[in-house]
């Protein structure tokens, strides 16, 4: 962003102000995440940088909070992690199946009442979580599914499907329907056409929608707080309790693991997005 030589001073000043503002915002966005890393290796029990850490003294760093997280007595993280993964995986599978089917229907030009149905399907994303939580809790309590994994999985399917619907409809908007027609004219059964032709082409959209659904479920705390019993606690619920009650560095160790996980998901999502754009012939 070099400025041409003839730029007037006031625009020069404005330009540098703009650049420094942008730098500040980027810093504001990303820096908080990096505070967690060093502090999770803190040898002490406080959530501040000790004198030793500021001097980079090796003794001030340790892995004790990671050990605590994995081997600690009476520690809730193992169970929470197991629950989180089970719930998120099943919720993702459910969201993908229901969401992809719905997106296929919605992308058809024969679909009646498209606008209102789309708005309904997307609504769990827009309605404040607290309201979704209350409503789903009433349903689950009546259905006898409160404090069960099934109940939480259903709730997370509700919250996750909008993402799948959105990403898959977006992928299908650039979809060339003559390929499926060609397959049908060659005698292929619709299911076969879907598995062999459509699915491979929309797969990037499906997977990235699935990633959204996974993250939504894995990160969701409001609805789980309403639904979960003692056996269904998840990582976010544990973090929520931890942050409210005893702020221990173990939470930071968990948080570091979560940041690593989200980095992996980000990379996957980005790669998929590019692949999808390439497949759909969008070159930007």
């Amino acid at each position: 962003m070099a400025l041409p030589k003839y730029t007037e001073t006031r625009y020069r000043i404005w330009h540098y102000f703009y650049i420094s503002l942008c730098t500040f915002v980027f810093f504001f966005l990303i820096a908080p995440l990096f505070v967690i890393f060093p502090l999770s290796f803190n040898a002490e029990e406080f959530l501040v940088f000790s004198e030793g850490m500021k001097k980079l003294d090796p003794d001030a760093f340790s892995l004790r909070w990671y050990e605590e997280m994995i081997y600690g007595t009476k520690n809730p993280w193992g169970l929470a992690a197991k629950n989180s993964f089970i719930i998120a995986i099943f919720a993702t599978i459910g969201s993908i199946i229901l969401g992809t089917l719905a997106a296929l229907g919605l992308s058809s030009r024969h679909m009646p009442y498209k606008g209102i149905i789309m708005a309904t399907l997307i609504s769990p994303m827009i309605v404040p979580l607290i309201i979704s939580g209350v409503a789903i809790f009433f349903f689950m309590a009546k259905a006898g599914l409160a404090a069960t994994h099934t109940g939480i999985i259903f709730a997370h399917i509700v919250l996750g499907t909008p993402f799948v619907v959105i990403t898959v409809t977006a992928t299908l908007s650039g979809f060339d329907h003559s390929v499926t027609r060609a397959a049908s004219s060659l005698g292929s059964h619709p299911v076969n056409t879907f598995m062999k032709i459509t699915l491979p082409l929309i797969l990037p959209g499906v997977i990235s929608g699935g990633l959204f659904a996974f993250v939504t479920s894995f990160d969701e705390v409001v609805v789980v707080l309403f639904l979960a019993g003692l056996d269904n606690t998840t990582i976010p619920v544990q973090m929520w309790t931890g942050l409210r009650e005893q702020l221990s560095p173990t939470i930071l160790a968990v948080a570091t693991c979560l940041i690593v996980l989200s980095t992996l998901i980000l990379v996957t999502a980005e790669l998929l997005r590019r692949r999808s754009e390439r497949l759909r012939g969008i070159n930007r």
Partner: protein
Amino acid sequence: MSSETQKILTTDGVPLEVSLKKAEKRNKIKAFLLVAPLLLFLLITYIFPIAEMFTRSIDDRMVTNMLPKTFKSMEKWDGKELPSEEIFKSFYEDYKVLVEKKEHGKLGQRLNKEKNGFNSILKRLFRKISRNKIDESASIKEQIIGIHRHYSNVDYWRAIKRTAPPYTMNKYLKGMDMFLNEDGNITQVEEDRRIHRILWLRTLEIALFVTIFCFLMGYPIAHLLATLPMKYSNLLMICVLLPFWTSLLVRTASWMILLQQQGLVNDFFVLIGLVSDDNRPEMMYNKVGTYVAMTQILLPFMVLPLYSVMKTISPSLVRAGKSLGGTPFTAFWKIYFPLTIPGIGAGCLLVFILAIGYYITPALVGGASGTLISNQIAYHMKTTLDWSFASAMGLMLLTGVMVVYWIYNKLVGVDNIKLG
């Protein structure tokens, strides 16, 4: 002379029009069947329960079911004079049934909300009934009035009559710090007890300011990301996307660490001499903390829609404006800015909708002054167990969000939401 047009037939001999309509209909059904499973699932687990929240919020059948005979005989009573013997008798019979079912306590509590002191005079009646002191062959009216003089006060009977309808708007009025007084008029609660109005205003204020902050910070960086060459912008995009994908609680936790009194932000302020070391300001557990944390958490939702709109604006437009003699500022303001308005609308509405229902972050970093309406709903769901009030507040919030969502749908269209 034949005016009838020749109908085009398909090979089976069916008119083409009919056959086409049939195929069209079949396609419609096929498309709908694909959507049906999700639609059904959402209707059962989500849409109907939200509708149920509504019935729950206006439901007031408890007393209606407890005193069926009383309300039947009260139908003709004008509420001006003391009720007749018949009403007293049916009230006595209803109450006796409740005593046998051991449900009289609930009635006392409910009626006490309607008229103070009701519970205690009902308890006296209960004692008489449980000791069989009421002579059913004599006048019930005189005996009941004999128990306590309040029974001869028309106000108490009017209070009973007010609870007759099976539905009530009381919870909604309570959510707006109002109530129905004894004459049935809507009145405001005393000034020092108007807690809910403060919460509504605070929620609105925080959502509005967070949206403004997000816009002021998001617009420049979205512009930078859209105009930089791809290889730099991809790298910088990570700064937006990584927080976007990171757990909300992780980000809240990091702000709790940064903003605490011994935290890095305060360390920095001390270092540059802004504040003295022994006088570090409290930046968490108040509005400052809520604003800072929520702005950072919601910023990606502003940047991404802005970026996707800005990306489509050709840079030659601004260049043309400049070459025609516009200053950089006019070129930006007259050409670039109007073109980004769809993105601004999308981003601001998205952030506003998300901010207005925020719960976790304000609860953790907001302290007492950072409590929003969502926290209040959660409080009534979990602590006071006043579910009908929680439902009423939830629906009031939902109505607000739906209005914004409707505007969003009109302006941007839900099918144009882009992710990542």
